[in-house]
């Protein structure tokens, strides 16, 4: 299993054996299937196409999450704290790809730690929570994304997260601590209850050992020991002494949290200090004006009345099997040609022109009639 169509950096030529495997001679001998299809007979992670990973440890921090340690195969180039990787997992015969941010520090060489919270409607997250066990092999992409700390670490940092959005900022925190970073770091995390906080003991330990790090956990559905409660507000920022106007702020979490932070930072005119990672849920529907119309799938001859969902979902409901990957507008595997009509990108709200262009159908909803080369 390899993540479909990912940009896979060439693995370094570490050994003569590897050089031989990459030579044109072996390609010619394996044609038309590629050397990989034969290497896989020896071991599932013996693949040249891109990193795969084997689960080497699985633990549970909360009842509805699973924390996995993965060992990537050769060709893994590491990651920068805050970036994400794509894991490809077979669920009920179908290869599903999802993005996850490693929670470990950058220094974790040859290992990646991922924490996955089970979402009630999440096919992959539920599968991993039920079935992840050491020895399992998954497809794993190179790391990507620009939600990263500057190489020169800022003097003041504010890390805000909620729920499972803790993982990229946890990675940043662990990285900074391991580096012996001396600047001020405020770590503000929101969870429903104390039981829902992953990495809780470690956070307490970090707070105890690093006087420059202030960790504040807020529970949205019960009283918090520190006195803060409910959702993020200016009062919260003030009381944790975050000094958000002077700090570089990194936010990852629920849409409500992100919307509030964006608006507040805009109000204060400090958007340049704000860095946001927002993972949309896999399924969304946009209703209201402008969504009526029909969708023509020109190649297959199918035509449906738009239900306002993403073009990918509508294509699938029409019985087509378009290629897809992340289903959230990141990996571009589902990119296909729009031959007529306008679409709205649900990630940024932009409405396209009616001209022919390539669009990501997983995050595009039709605006009026649309024709796709599917």
């Amino acid at each position, binding site marked *: 299993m390899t993540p479909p169509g990912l940009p896979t950096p060439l693995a370094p030529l570490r050994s003569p054996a590897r050089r031989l495997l990459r030579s044109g001679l072996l390609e*010619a*001998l394996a*044609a038309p299937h590629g050397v990989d*299809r034969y290497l896989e007979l020896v071991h599932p992670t013996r693949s040249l196409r891109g990193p795969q990973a084997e689960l080497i440890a699985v633990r549970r921090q909360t009842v509805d999450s699973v924390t996995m340690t993965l060992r990537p195969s050769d060709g893994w180039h590491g990651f920068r704290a805050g970036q994400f990787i794509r894991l490809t997992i077979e669920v009920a*015969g179908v290869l599903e*790809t999802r993005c996850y941010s490693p929670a470990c520090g950058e220094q974790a060489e040859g290992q990646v730690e991922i924490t996955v919270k089970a979402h009630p409607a999440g096919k992959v997250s539920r599968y991993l929570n039920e079935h992840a066990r050491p020895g399992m092999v998954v497809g794993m992409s190179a790391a990507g994304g620009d939600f990263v700390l500057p190489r020169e670490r800022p003097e003041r940092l504010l890390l805000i997260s909620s729920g499972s959005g803790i993982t990229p900022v946890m990675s940043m925190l662990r990285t900074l601590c391991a580096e012996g970073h001396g600047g001020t770091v405020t770590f503000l995390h929101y969870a429903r209850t104390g039981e829902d906080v992953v990495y809780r003991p470690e956070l307490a330990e970090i707070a105890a050992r690093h006087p420059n790090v202030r960790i504040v956990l807020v529970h949205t559905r019960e009283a918090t020991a520190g006195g803060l409660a409910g959702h993020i507000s200016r009062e919260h920022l003030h009381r944790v002494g975050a000094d958000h106007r002077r700090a570089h702020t990194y936010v990852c979490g629920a849409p409500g949290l992100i919307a509030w932070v964006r608006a507040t930072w805009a109000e204060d005119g400090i958007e340049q200090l704000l860095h946001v990672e927002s993972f949309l849920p896999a399924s969304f529907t946009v209703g209201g004006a402008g969504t009526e119309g029909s969708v023509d799938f020109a190649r297959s001859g199918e035509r449906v009345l738009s239900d306002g969902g993403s073009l990918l979902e509508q294509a699938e409901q029409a019985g087509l*099997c378009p*290629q897809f990957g992340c289903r959230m507008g990141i990996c571009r595997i589902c990119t296909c040609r729009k031959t007529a009509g306008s679409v709205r990108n649900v990630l940024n709200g932009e409405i396209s022109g009616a001209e022919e262009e390539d669009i990501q159908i997983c995050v595009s909803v039709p605006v009026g009639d649309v024709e796709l080369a599917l």
Partner: protein
Amino acid sequence: MYYATTPSLSKEQADAFGRELDAIRRHVLADLGERDADYIRGVIRTQRRLEVAGRSLLFFSFIPPAWLGGVTALSLSKILDNMEIGHNVMHGQYDWINDPELNGRRFEWDNACPADQWRHSHNYLHHTYTNVLGKDRDVGYGILRMSERQPWRLYYLGNPLYAALLAIFFQYGVAVHDLELDRIVAGEITLGEKRDLLDGVWDKVRRQTIKDYVLFPLLSGPSAPLVLAGNASANLVRNLWAFTTIFCGHFPDGTVQFTEEETIEETRGQWYYRQLLGSADLTGGKLFHILSGNLSHQIEHHLFPDLPSHRYAEIAVEVREICRRNGLPYNAGPLRKQFGSVVRKIARLALPKGEA
């Protein structure tokens, strides 16, 4: 109503027939899952192992049993690669798995015919215009007379000879399928118009030739001639087997050919009915079905070309029952009987007799 010699269906009857088949299709689609993914991956694993085993044994070609074992394993590997894996994967039967290795649009097979040309000539032309004379190039591959409704010419005296040559060189016959050599010879089109297709075929043939007839023989050193002979034999076995099973799909006695006029304004139900009338099944055991790429279930394959092939055996039970209930023909028989009737037809149609 068309199809004069067969039970004719009214439009309503054809629609009802179509609805029953659509129901089967929906039912199978809803049930696709791990079983299907595991099946095709298992077949691919077996094929790769057979190939590695076959080519390894051929390195010891100087021991006669090793040569024979090597040829057997490599032949089976090539048969599985072309029939149960390549043909079916390229139909998009496993697209829903979302694995680029099993994607119908990307898959390439160990066959002289480039996958993209195959998808056009086979998935589109043959499966849409099944048995329609002048449209479906699988009817005689442009060189044979396979229907009484093809007008006889002196050229067709060589029908059995052409068929034998096609069987021996079957993968090349398939490869030049889209080139429409017969039309080039007839001066209807020029070779220049087919330049891109020709380049694609040449590239594919070159790779396979280098692999099977240069690199692997050279790597084996002194056994080179034996390895070359072994690889040629494996390609030949695959060619003969593919020809045999494929010609049993649409040409045994009882299968019907159609004219373009007969298919004008065809409904979905009538399209289903044409697929049923134009195809024939082979009976046999499980291994036989797998080695035929489940083309032994040709009727089911033509009704549902994009459903995973290993489901056809289950689907066939339902299709047979629908046909029995509605008094429709269902052409099925053992390989010997079906192929015998194909051979007799090839010989009979060499002569003018039987012209419609």
